[in-house]
């Protein structure tokens, strides 16, 4: 009789399966009865065949369990061990199991969490901006009834004038209230400070209109809004604590104190919350707007807001606006003739949104594509992993796990990955949100309101769920399908399984390539647009140019003669500073700081009655301005000493764009016009044409600029200094010289010509950089995917390749075959991607400069890049295939 020691050992994996499928008692019985059979087989079959039979019987256990359970569906699954099938799909235990499974592949898990996290983070950050700017209601009570009221002269919308506002206030019945403000820059002086600050002059009812109440003190009364009323001011709590040294949060100590604005003392009557919402801007000081009785219809500078009365519909309110405008039109026809212009209103939220929504949706689309690529990449990685885990999964199925349970196990792993992704994503998005005000505040408004609100967190969770479900389901459904019994024997390395998995993976890689193409195209288009913009001749010599704003306080320099004296002295002193080549003053600064525009009526081509006069940038400049910026005189003459004096007949210079626009092919010099809506008085004569300089951004079509001689009108012009060398070095000397003329004059917005041009391209540059980064990451992920499946396929087909080589196939042909297969995918992805890119790139057209959204060169470039990297990605595994040693490869088989 054979003892227990004589039977062959039980293989580890069989023992493990048994331990997890069967009660200990059953295992004991089964092994014991098998030993008994082994004894019989030794007698009937002989020892060797008995051992073989015994081993075969052992291996049958897991396989039988499984085959039976699948064959009869779960209703008849063998439940030798009760607890396996009763456990809930998700518990701490299963969670820990999934976490352990992930920890066994740390690099893969980290790569997934990172790529998905970055995608989710980008999407979330941009969604946070969209939420703050576009979705969240404005932080005012009943904000949906607030409207911005504007002059509507298609295609332009511009503010109202004093005449307009007063008529509106007196006659309207559709609004609970209307109010207006004017944003100004004023000089604030304190013992140690002379600073230019934003000041908002508001009509007394403005704060009430927006439902903002002061933390302490009061808002201005309507008497203070009358001409000759007491000069009072409201400040924010932040301003009070910085400049008035208040300690209390409500800043009450500041009440009754005086501050000096433009040389005049004003009394603080109220302290406002730190940030007075989106219409407050960066203003910290609020004066009361005093509207003097107007003498003409213009100028149009008042931002007017209304709160529609409850129960009044918008159409009624809008109709009333148009009616009031029509009523007052005849009264002011002498100074304003555009009878097509009317008043319109726009929801405040929409008015504040500006043109930024397009930019945000482009960014959202781009980062969404990136997340899609990252998700598909993850699905691909998980598929490969599931493929290599089929035996493990089969064993789990053998435990009596139902397909539902298997899916939930695999989904749980994906959920953990997505959860990790969302954590990384939230950290990343917080980082982006913190960074945004630093880099993007010049072209995206209200960034200080952006935060990870509940809605945003919900969106992040939604993204994580969506992307987790996508990569989870693809891998899970693949994981549970097929003949599990066979998988137990082969470890999942059967031809059909591989084929199915490979087909999924090829699809995913092609889809990734497809999604990467629009990103690459967008990045390419923006990059060529940026290159074009950088090549644009700004019209002035930006090198060795230093510019800054010099601001005189209106109180001290209310007299023209005082201003003239200051400018004369300052220019004279500066021209003697060593290293200064020339100096000049102008009211606006290229490339994108335009102070005012003005309308005019040409003597030769009068505007027909009832139509609006042309409006163009209007710059007050002295003689030195053109020389200092290097703006050439093209015809006629420059300003001379006589032009600068106020008594001389009015003359202007115009730029090339003006001459081209109004007198194409004719001489512009000598033409005359009246400006500002005047219908009488002396004609203004064009005495010269100068080169074109942009005032509303590099690369923008010039509308034609008029230069009026100055600078005695000016209180806060830009000073331009042409330096012999590094302009930044001159700054201390210039500051010193100006201080000698008047130490209270602040110098702000200091910049060199180069920094001005560079910051005017900031949006374009940032957007290009962001899209380029997204595109390259997407391409990298897609190409790694392509490399991965090609390498896999080469590995799997070693035998086949060896046979080809052994039968005399050339290594070159093998390489070609591998590369050819990969390129099929690349080309499919490329073709679909190009179609998508052509459909999508139209949204970019408004951001492109001298590049068509379907620029064939860019598309060709993207195609070449994609094909090239795909060639590299497939040639690497391809060359490995070509070097397969047939004999050793076949021996392995």
């Amino acid at each position, binding site marked *: 009789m054979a003892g227990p020691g004589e039977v062959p050992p039980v293989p580890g994996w069989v023992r493990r399966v048994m331990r997890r499928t069967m009660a200990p008692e059953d295992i004991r*019985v*089964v092994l014991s009865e098998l030993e008994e059979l082994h004894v019989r087989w030794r007698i009937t079959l002989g020892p060797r065949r008995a051992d073989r039979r015994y081993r075969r019987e052992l291996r049958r256990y897991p396989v039988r369990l499984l085959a039976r359970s699948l064959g009869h569906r779960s209703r008849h699954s063998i439940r030798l061990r009760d607890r396996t099938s009763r456990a809930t799909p998700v518990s701490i235990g299963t969670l820990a199991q999934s976490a352990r499974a992930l920890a066994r592949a740390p690099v893969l898990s980290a790569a997934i969490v990172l790529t998905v996290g970055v995608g989710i983070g980008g999407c979330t950050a941009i969604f946070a901006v969209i939420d703050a700017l576009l979705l969240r209601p404005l932080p005012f009570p009943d904000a949906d009834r607030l409207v911005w009221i504007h002059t509507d002269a298609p295609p332009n919308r511009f503010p109202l004038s004093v005449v307009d506002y007063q008529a509106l206030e007196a006659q309207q019945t559709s609004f609970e209230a209307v109010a207006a403000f004017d944003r100004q820059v004023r000089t604030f002086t304190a013992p140690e400070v002379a600073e230019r600050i934003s000041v908002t002059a508001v009509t007394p009812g403005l704060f009430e209109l927006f439902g903002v109440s002061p933390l302490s003190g009061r808002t201005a009364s309507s008497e203070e809004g009358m001409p000759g009323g007491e000069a009072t001011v409201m400040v924010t709590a932040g301003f009070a604590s910085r400049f008035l040294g208040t300690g209390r949060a409500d800043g009450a100590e500041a009440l009754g104190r005086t501050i000096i604005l433009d040389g005049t003392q004003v009394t603080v009557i109220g302290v406002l919350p730190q940030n007075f919402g989106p219409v407050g801007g960066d203003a910290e000081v609020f004066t009361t707007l005093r509207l003097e009785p107007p003498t003409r219809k213009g100028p149009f500078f008042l931002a007017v807001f209304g709160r529609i009365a409850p129960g009044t519909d918008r159409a009624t309110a809008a109709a009333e606006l148009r009616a009031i405008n029509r009523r007052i039109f005849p009264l002011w026809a002498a100074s304003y003739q555009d009878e097509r212009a009317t008043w319109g209103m726009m929801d405040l939220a929409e008015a504040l949104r500006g043109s930024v929504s397009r930019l945000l949706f482009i960014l959202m689309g781009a980062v969404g594509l990136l997340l899609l690529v990252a998700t598909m990449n993850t699905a691909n990685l998980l598929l490969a992993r599931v493929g290599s885990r089929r035996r493990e999964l089969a064993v789990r199925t053998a435990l009596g796990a139902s397909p539902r349970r298997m899916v939930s196990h695999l989904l749980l792993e994906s959920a953990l990955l997505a959860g990790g992704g969302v954590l990384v994503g939230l950290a990343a998005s917080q980082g982006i949100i913190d960074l945004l005000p630093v880099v993007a505040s010049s072209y995206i408004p209200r960034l200080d309101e952006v935060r990870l609100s509940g809605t945003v967190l919900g969106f992040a969770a939604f993204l994580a769920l969506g992307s987790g479900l996508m990569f989870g389901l693809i891998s899970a459904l693949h994981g549970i399908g097929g003949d599990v019994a066979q998988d137990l024997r082969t470890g999942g390395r059967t031809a059909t399984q591989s084929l199915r998995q490979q087909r999924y993976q090829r699809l995913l890689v092609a889809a990734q390539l497809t999604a990467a193409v629009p990103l690459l195209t967008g990045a390419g288009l923006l990059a060529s647009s940026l290159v074009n913009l950088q090549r644009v001749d700004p019209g002035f010599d930006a090198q060795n140019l230093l510019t800054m704003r010099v601001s005189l306080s209106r109180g001290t320099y209310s007299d023209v003669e005082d201003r003239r004296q200051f400018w004369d002295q300052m220019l004279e002193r500066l021209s003697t500073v060593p290293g200064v080549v020339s100096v000049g003053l102008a009211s606006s600064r290229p490339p994108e700081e335009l102070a005012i525009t003005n309308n005019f009526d040409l003597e030769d081509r009068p505007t027909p009655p009832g139509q609006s006069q042309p409006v163009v940038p209007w710059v007050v400049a002295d003689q030195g301005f053109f020389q200092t910026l290097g703006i050439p005189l093209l015809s006629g003459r420059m300003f001379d000493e006589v032009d600068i004096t106020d008594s001389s007949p009015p003359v202007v210079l115009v730029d090339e764009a003006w001459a081209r626009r109004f007198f194409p092919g004719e001489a512009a010099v000598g033409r005359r016009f009246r400006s500002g809506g005047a219908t009488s008085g002396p004609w203004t004569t064009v005495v010269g044409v100068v080169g074109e300089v942009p005032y509303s951004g590099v690369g923008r079509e010039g509308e034609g600029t008029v230069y009026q001689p100055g600078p005695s009108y000016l209180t806060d012009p830009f000073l331009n200094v042409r330096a012999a060398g590094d302009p930044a070095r001159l700054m201390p000397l210039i500051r010193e010289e100006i201080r000698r003329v008047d130490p209270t004059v602040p110098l702000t917005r200091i910049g060199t010509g180069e920094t001005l041009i560079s910051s005017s391209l900031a949006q374009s540059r940032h957007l290009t950089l962001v899209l380029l980064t997204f595109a390259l990451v997407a391409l990298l992920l897609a190409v790694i995917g392509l490399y991965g499946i090609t390498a896999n396929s080469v590995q799997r087909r070693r035998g086949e390749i060896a046979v080809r080589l052994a039968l005399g196939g050339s290594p070159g042909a093998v390489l070609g075959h591998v590369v050819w297969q990969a390129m099929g995918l690349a080309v499919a992805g490329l073709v679909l991607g190009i179609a998508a890119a052509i459909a999508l790139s139209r949204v970019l057209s408004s951001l492109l400069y001298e590049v068509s959204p379907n620029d064939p060169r860019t598309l060709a470039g993207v195609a070449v890049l994609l094909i090239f990297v795909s060639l590299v990605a497939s040639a690497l595994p391809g060359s490995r295939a070509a070097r397969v040693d047939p004999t050793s490869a076949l021996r392995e088989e």
Partner: protein
Amino acid sequence: MSKTGLGEFEHQVLLSVLRLGGEAYSVPLVLEMEERSGREVAQAAVYIVLRRLEEKGLVSSRMEEPEETESRRARRYFKLEPAGLERLKESRRTMARFWEGIEAALEES
């Protein structure tokens, strides 16, 4: 009673238990079934099917611990229950109805 009839293998196992006296463990069952079928019969299959039939109430089982047996081995004896016997009879009746009248014809061809 279960709605499904017996599978062929289940049928064979139950019949073999009956043939071995109404109570048996896997070793004699495997040998008996191999002899009758002329094919290799997997012990795993026999054991698993018996445990499942037990779940259905067609057989019952009892353990024999090593200390209690002369063979010094653990065994699980399965005993045919009345329900199992009833099921066998029913299967036989059903099959007989199907075979009625064609037995001879099949024999001749």
